[in-house]
């Protein structure tokens, strides 16, 4: 009887998760057209408790997507437009001389835009490594330290960063340590022909689309707990481990392409991210456990930015997608008959 009740609770939680997910997505899709995979990816990262890096040429709606998401969720949202002259204090906050009620002046901490729930880090690769590194503590430890003061960031905290891969002049590529802290890297592509009409109708018309919030920060935190409760079967976990190890040159699961072209593979954080994102996908698809399909689908956005392709690979124009595809082809699925 207890187990039946427990299963019913789990089914109810999963149903609640799917409802909120669908509501948020519907609101975002009021403005976003033809970017279903990207919207799913961003919401997966948000609900899995990670951060997401959106990469694409200008004009594809990266910033718009994040703004729509922040409108659909009633949370504290801030936007940082990164520039080369931006300093860590500009995003974390700093001590400023302020006048108090008695007319006297004292130093007070002025919070930076990083202290919010949803942070849009626009064109993050335009900031210097010093400023980019200021994000590291916030992204991993969920806290900001300025001088001797440490501020705990409120949950949910999610950094949604965008970067433009085309304009490389005056940019600073993100360091590996920071790239590893992004749960997903989503590459935003051009919309299809049939999507152009709705995009133009919604953006150049007289009417302005207003997105009403459908949930709040507390609900997002509850959904994150549901995600953590999803179990991972042994075969799925084994497969995720082998896929992550397959990206590491010299490992027993690494294909020839990895050994030739990859200088640095994914860390165990890649396996954590892979399974967390797979849990969200399992719930969204109405399942109560992670499957091999979830891992295979999410392997590319989770692992692509954790690979460092060496000089030979760059000269042979090998992409991270090629490497991940080679790994997925090489690692045997646990349910397949051994050859």
């Amino acid at each position: 009887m207890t187990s039946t009740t427990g299963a019913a609770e789990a089914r109810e939680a999963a149903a609640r998760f799917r409802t909120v997910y669908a509501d948020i997505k519907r609101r975002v899709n009021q403005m976003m057209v033809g970017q279903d995979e990207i919207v799913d990816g961003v919401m997966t990262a948000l609900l899995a408790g990670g951060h997401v890096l959106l990469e694409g040429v200008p004009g594809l709606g990266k910033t718009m997507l994040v703004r729509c998401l922040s409108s659909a969720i009633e949370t504290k949202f801030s936007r940082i437009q990164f520039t080369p002259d931006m300093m860590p204090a500009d995003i974390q906050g700093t001590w400023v001389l302020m006048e108090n009620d008695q007319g006297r002046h004292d130093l007070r901490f002025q919070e930076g835009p990083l202290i919010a729930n949803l942070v849009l880090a626009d064109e993050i690769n335009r900031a210097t490594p010093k400023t980019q590194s200021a994000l590291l503590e916030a992204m991993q430890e969920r806290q900001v330290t300025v001088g001797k003061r440490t501020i705990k960031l409120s949950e949910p905290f999610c950094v949604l960063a965008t970067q433009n891969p085309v304009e490389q002049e005056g940019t600073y590529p993100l360091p590996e340590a920071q790239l590893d802290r992004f749960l997903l890297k989503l590459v935003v592509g051009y919309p299809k022909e049939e999507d152009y009409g709705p995009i133009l109708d919604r953006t150049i018309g007289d009417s302005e689309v207003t997105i009403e919030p459908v949930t709040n920060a507390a609900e997002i935190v509850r959904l994150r707990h549901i995600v953590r409760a999803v179990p991972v079967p042994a075969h799925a976990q084994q497969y995720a481990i082998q896929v992550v190890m397959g990206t590491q040159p010299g490992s027993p699961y690494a294909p020839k392409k990895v050994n030739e072209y990859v200088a640095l593979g994914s860390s165990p954080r890649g396996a954590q991210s892979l399974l967390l994102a797979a849990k969200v996908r399992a719930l969204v698809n109405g399942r109560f456990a992670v499957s091999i399909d979830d891992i295979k689908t999410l392997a590319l956005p989770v692992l692509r930015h954790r690979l460092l392709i060496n000089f030979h690979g760059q000269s042979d124009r090998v992409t991270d997608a090629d490497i991940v595809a080679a790994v997925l082809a090489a690692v045997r699925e646990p349910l397949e008959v051994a050859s």
Partner: protein
Amino acid sequence: MAQEPLLQQQLNHLAVRAQRSLGRWAFARDFRLTVRDSLVWLLVAPVLLSGVQVALLLAGRGPLTWPTLAWVLLSLAGPVGFVVARMASLAKHRQLGRRTCLGAFDLQLNSHDRLVTADEFLAGGASDHFRQAAIDDAADHIARASETTLDEKALPAWAISQRSWAAAVVALALIVGAQWIGHVALGIRNAPDAATVLTTANLQTLPARVAASLLDLRPNPPRPDRPAPDEAAQANAAQPSPDASPRTPRTDQEADGQSHAGGQASSRSASQAMASSGTPSNQQTPSQPLEEDPPQPQDAAAAAQAKKAEGKKGQQQASSATSGQGQSKSSSSDSNSIPATDQPDRAGANKDDGKDEEGIQDEQEEEKTSGVERPSLRRNKPPVDRNLSNRPATDQAGPNANGRSGPGGRKKTRGVPAMILGVPTPDRIQGMTNPGRSKVTQENSTPKEEPQSALTAEERAARENPFGYIEHPLLRPWMQNLVEKYFLQLREKGGTPPLRKETRQ
């Protein structure tokens, strides 16, 4: 909770069904792959049997005379043995686990691992709500799988690689070749005499060793005239060579009118020519197995004359090739006396070489220490003539000499044309010059104290001139506002700004 045993039972049943089906498929797949790889093993038996065949022939025994069918059957034993061994090994190591069997249903029904997951959670005990929900979720899929038959999986094609075809062809060729060798050897073995042997066995096509072995296969005829090897050697030593020259090496050199180096070169090339053509003295040496048998008396005499003539011809060719423009003065006696003349020269040369080697080693060490390659005059060669052939410098002009360092003869020094180099002369000095011998030595030395007188500080004088204009930093807008607000507030309260000490004073 009540349906868990039922689900477990259904999953067990599904696993057994899948194991049976997948087992059949895996056996068929392994068999095809093994057969495909086994054709290479066709080579094993033919290679071994051919080796045995040749070994028997070389050992002087009779060849293998098995029928072709036996050879073919033995060849097929390789692939068959390989297939049996490999299939046994694969059957031993083939693992069709429960997960794989249930996974086959998952893959076929596209149920996203629900069966495998439920089986795992049932086996481990559903400890939390989501595991229980996953088991419940899989119930429908398990029922669906119970009504489903696993599809036959595709088997690999019977594609035989080019390597396998090549192996089969090579095996066939080896069988045919080994049998042919056996037939030929058998024919030779049964042949009546040596003449038949030489005509039957085609020595141009058989390997030399096999041919030599074949010659030994025939029955040995009686040899009454053949002397003992020791006696023959003594007789050879006592009997002088018909062309032996009584002249000494010194007289040879004087007669040739050539330098020492030239004499060495000509005598060496002449000896090579003699070795290739076969001189009478070579025939007398008892170390050639193929020429041990004394030929028939008439044939022997004719062969000796023919070889003598060939030897002379070869010496003439060799000497003419050595001296270039037909200035050969060497004769057959010279070439016969070459070993005697060579001995002292080589001994002397070896002594010199010993000294030279020491000198060369010293120079090499110096080059290593100095890092610069020095010219090595020891490696110099005599200059070449217009025909680019090494030739000792002589004043004697050849028949085609034109007086301008044409073919042969030293260049005449007459007029302006004589100043132009007519003979392309290569550089005699190789390498780069270096500044000379240098030696670096390091010596340990102890530091010495050097006394230094103490410096006295000068007194600093007082400032006499003003500092000049000091620019005040510009205040930022918020600073200006701050200052403005401060003074306004101060004014509103009726106070006065604090004055600096100097102003107050």
